């Protein structure tokens, strides 16, 4: 598993926690979500 995947997985669980607490996401969260979605699309190709 690459460094990118490990860090993104960790960060995504922080985002999940935030959402479960009904908190809004900030710009940094969206940056990680964007990277995760690109990684997901790359994996599908």
């Amino acid at each position, binding site marked *: 598993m*690459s*460094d*990118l*995947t490990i*860090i*993104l997985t960790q960060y995504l669980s922080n*985002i999940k926690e935030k*959402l479960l607490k*009904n908190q*809004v*996401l900030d*710009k940094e969260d*969206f*940056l990680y*979500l*964007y*990277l995760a*979605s*690109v*990684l*997901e*699309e*790359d994996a599908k190709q």
Partner: protein
Amino acid sequence: MPNNKTIGLIQLGSINQVLETIVAFKGYTKSFPDIHKTIFLKSLARELEPLLKEEFEKIIYIQELDKSSVEKNLNYLNEEILKVSFSVLINLTFSKASAYLCSLINAKFRLGFKYSKTNSLEIEDTWSKYIYAVIMGKNINPFSIIDIYKSIIGNKQTKLQKFSD
């Protein structure tokens, strides 16, 4: 007084979709000569650069992910992509990544797929809703996709026609 209205366009689709976008923008400059247009593309669209330069004042190619480091990717995004801002940002790609990018880039007004601050997918304009509901994953669209793109971007030279007309 200088007109500083800017349009940003996200098109991270295939070469075919980039070509359709270029065609949809034909005549746009005639209708709105003072608007500065920027397009965000994947690097695979570089081969269409001569055509793109005819319609867009600025072309930004989104770099591929550097899988070795998160920081390199974040630095790239912060320094190259997120420094720009637009009066209107239009997302013509219907993917998760493009929707997140649309939410990230600074803009006063956004059209197309985007995410809200609670991470739910939002589509406000009618034609993007139509694409999401009728075209994606199905094959029942009676309109030309170029005409739909024209309607989304507000190209006044639009006349939606069914293929059978």
